[in-house]
């Protein structure tokens, strides 16, 4: 039963596991000051793994493999590539983290979590789905609290764990009800069972809400967002970047597959719920971002609002809408990792994370200033950066689906967003250090940062200008969803 196709379908995961094993094998033999090389191993390994997967692991027709647990399709494949890209960048950013970079466990946990996310993108079965979500989450709980003796980090890890455990329990309850109604755990069979069976809309509503608690936690939409600011602030910065991008995107991957595939019968109901969540998320996220003084907390609230924007595409419930969500996630992953990368590079040298501390950054390191500019303008939705096209597409999907009110909410929110994003850039470009002696306080970048940040910045600009290939991949992926 273990055919070449089965092998191909989990090729990326096998490779990720191999990299993890390599890290595990090599790490004890390295001296203390060499252990950061595990980051090169991880990032380089993931890069090679992506190439190998692209060569040998590309799906053709969507097929159910491994007893229907996994669905081997372009949708999952494209998302897997995105996650692996995000993890590779995170590994590079992690390398020179003072207290996490020289510990092999960090990379191992990162890879374990990546493994879970990859499976989230391709699971077609409730049980597999739940297992993969947990596989992705548990390493992240540990990573968030990775800085021993740091109160904030410990708080972050513990908070994330408590919230996460609760949310996933509630979601599991939803899954069990779903199984009870449908008599099957396979997503594609559930759709058929729910169509023919007579599940009352009220019960379906309950199930959708329960499931959404867990997924809403993963993508951090309001009202399941409380953990995000504290966790982002406390967790090691690269981990926070990873949480806000890959982890969120993985949550969206599940939302799209689960709702589009399993609940087409109740479209009117769940799109309405998602629309409300989206509107609240955008508004709350943006409004709470306004008074923030810590750059990581600001990015946390901004990431909450971006979950709201991306959700507009899901609300539209169309192929174009789903494709626009995937495209949005691709743009967002590159953008937000870039933002967190700059923050990481900055705070590694200075140890500071307040927005006011960024004063004079563009003079202390012009390259870093430009990266910040690219990241924040992309978050604000300005061309030629990825955020603009992504936003236009989700808005277009919303208007097409006659959710004009939601788009209007989105637009008002982007205006609020512009204000606080530009406000940060004001510190970076306009304000100066108290003594105006920026030349005396340079911010040197080590090699991993240069590589990661340049790749991410180029990615942000490419997605924003030559968007056709990226959108094509998203679109082809979504096509295989059904």
């Amino acid at each position: 039963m273990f055919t070449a196709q089965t092998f191909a379908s989990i090729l990326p995961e096998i490779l990720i596991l191999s990299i993890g094993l390599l890290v595990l094998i090599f790490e004890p033999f390295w001296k203390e000051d060499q252990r950061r090389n595990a980051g090169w191993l991880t990032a380089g390994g993931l890069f090679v793994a992506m190439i190998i997967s692209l060569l040998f692991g590309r799906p053709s027709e969507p097929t159910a493999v491994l007893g229907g647990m996994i669905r081997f399709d372009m949708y999952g494949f494209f998302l897997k590539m995105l996650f692996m890209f995000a993890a590779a960048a995170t590994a590079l950013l992690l390398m020179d983290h003072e207290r996490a970079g020289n510990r092999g466990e960090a990379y191992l946990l990162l890879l374990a979590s990546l493994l879970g996310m990859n499976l989230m993108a391709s699971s077609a079965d409730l049980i597999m789905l739940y297992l993969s979500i947990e596989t992705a989450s548990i390493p992240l709980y540990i990573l968030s609290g990775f800085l021993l003796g740091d109160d904030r980090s410990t708080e972050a890890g513990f908070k994330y764990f408590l919230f996460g455990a609760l949310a996933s329990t509630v979601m599991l309850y939803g899954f069990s009800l779903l199984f009870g109604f449908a008599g099957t755990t396979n997503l594609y069979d559930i759709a058929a069972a729910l169509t023919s069976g007579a599940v009352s809309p009220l019960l379906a509503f309950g199930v959708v809400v329960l499931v959404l608690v867990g997924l809403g936690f993963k993508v951090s939409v309001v009202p399941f967002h409380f953990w995000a600011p504290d966790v982002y602030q406390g967790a090691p910065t690269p981990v926070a970047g990873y949480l806000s991008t890959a982890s969120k995107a993985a949550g969206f991957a599940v939302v799209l597959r689960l709702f589009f595939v399993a609940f087409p019968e109740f479209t009117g109901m769940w799109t309405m719920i998602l629309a409300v969540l989206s509107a609240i998320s955008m508004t709350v996220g943006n409004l709470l971002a306004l008074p923030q003084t810590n750059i990581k907390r600001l990015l946390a609230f901004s990431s909450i609002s971006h979950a709201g924007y991306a959700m507009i595409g899901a609300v539209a419930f169309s192929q174009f809408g789903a494709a626009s969500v995937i495209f949005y996630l691709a743009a967002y992953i590159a953008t937000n990792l870039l933002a967190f990368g700059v923050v990481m590079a900055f705070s590694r040298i200075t140890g500071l994370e307040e927005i006011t501390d960024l004063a004079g950054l563009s003079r202390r390191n012009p390259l870093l200033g430009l990266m910040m500019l690219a990241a924040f303008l992309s978050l604000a939705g300005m061309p030629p950066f990825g955020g603009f096209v992504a936003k236009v597409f989700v808005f277009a999907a919303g208007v097409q689906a006659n959710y004009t009110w939601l788009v209007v909410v989105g637009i008002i929110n982007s205006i609020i967003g512009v204000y606080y994003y530009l406000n940060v850039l004001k510190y970076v470009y306009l304000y100066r250090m108290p003594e105006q002696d920026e030349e005396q306080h340079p911010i040197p970048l080590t090699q991993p940062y240069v590589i990661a940040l340049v790749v991410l910045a180029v990615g942000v600009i490419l997605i924003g200008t030559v968007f056709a290939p990226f959108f094509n991949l998203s679109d082809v992926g979504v096509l295989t969803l059904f």
Partner: protein
Amino acid sequence: MNFPILSVITFLPFAAGLFILTMPATRKNETRAVALATAVVDLLLSGWVYLQYLLGHMQGYQFVEKYTWLNIPPINISLHFGVDGMSAPLVLLTGIVMFTGVLISWGNDDPHVMAGIQDRPREFFAFLFLLAGGVFGVFVSLDLFMLFFFYEIAVFPMYLLIAIWGWVKTREYAAMKLTLYLFIGSVVALVGALAMYWTQYQNTGVLSFDMLEMEKAGFSAAFQNAWFLPVFFGFAVLGGIWPFHNWSPDGHVAAPTAVSMFHAGVLMKLGAFAALRVGVMLLPEGAKHWSWLIMAFAGIAVVYGAYIAFVQTDLKYMIGFSSVSHMGLVMLGVSTLNSTGLTGAGVQMFSHGVMTALFFAVTGMIYDRAHTRMIPELGGIAKVIPWAAIGFIIGGLVSMGMPGFSGFVAEFPIFMGVWREQWLVAVIASISIVITAAYIMMNIRKVFFSPMPENLEGHIGDITVLDKVAIVTLCLFMIGIGLFPSIMVPMVETGVQHIMTLLGGA
């Protein structure tokens, strides 16, 4: 014509901006030289496009380039460039302002004379070129999506340019205000554009952001009436239309000289042009339905702007409000929806662009040397900087609409067009001519010819050769068009022809 000249014009500034960013920060003069070379090339290319259009067939869209950018149903975006009689002068205008803007910003590294851009010229020119590329892109784009794309690119560098290099007292406030105003306008227009896109699909089954396709979409009257206002006003905010003009004088005042020139000279045209191209041309029924409202707002802007300019004591605020007044004339011309008025609006966009760029350039030169822009504190500038005085006077004559200068060629048809639609508005708006003449002449007398205050005596040096080149360039265009209207008016008329066809008249 196989050479993709419009693409080159548009993308050259982006490429140059990126290149400049890679240069070492200490090599200031090399940076400036690269910037100037780029600006010269772009000016020559845009001049070439203009001349080719003028001497060629003079009809429809020329230099058309079309590349599919993204065609994955249901989204179809193409890189569709082309100029017509309306946009070719504006492309030339952008080339002129870009060239003179770089000249004015040259700067020297003498700490005692603050002229041009001393601090981080590398970043300054890079952002300025990003802005210029966006502006070119809007004028040549025939694809609605790309138009938005370039429009937004043109908006955000303004924030940085004003906030970083602007006037210390108001720059943060003005930059944020300007960006928010423009961003709000553009996103409101964006919703309208998306609605047009999907409605076009429902009506004709065509999925395309191509504006030439959208012109044939046959939007229902109800749809047009509903969406015209958000689309038109969304763009017209950047055109400084009353009552959404408030950001504009603040922005002018806070911006460094070259950015003021860009802002008043080109960016405000961007708003008016996009409002015309997207609002009026794609939603002609809506334009007819709401033309009275635009006419009323524009009429108020013309008189109100002139009056506020009259009472200003800050030279830059004066020019800023006079821009509101003159852009009001453009909108007034647009609101007539007849060929006379529209032609006037087209010429006025060019004429005002050159004129106001000149005004801001001269003001910047005076401020750099006298360290004040307050009219009561200035005097006798003509003695020390005669070139600036000549430039300012010529600009003033254009501003007043004197025959023999481009202002007359532009304003006369506008008033004629308005008279045909609503004579009362023409009468009221013409009051502005008197007010404009009053404040221009008063200021010329005070700033240039009254006795020089003692504290300025001996402190003001002459301007550089580069500044003079900039002044002469700008003056030549204004006089040229004033004396030979045939080098621009027939061209704009061909552009108007197309608009009139869409409006169902003429």
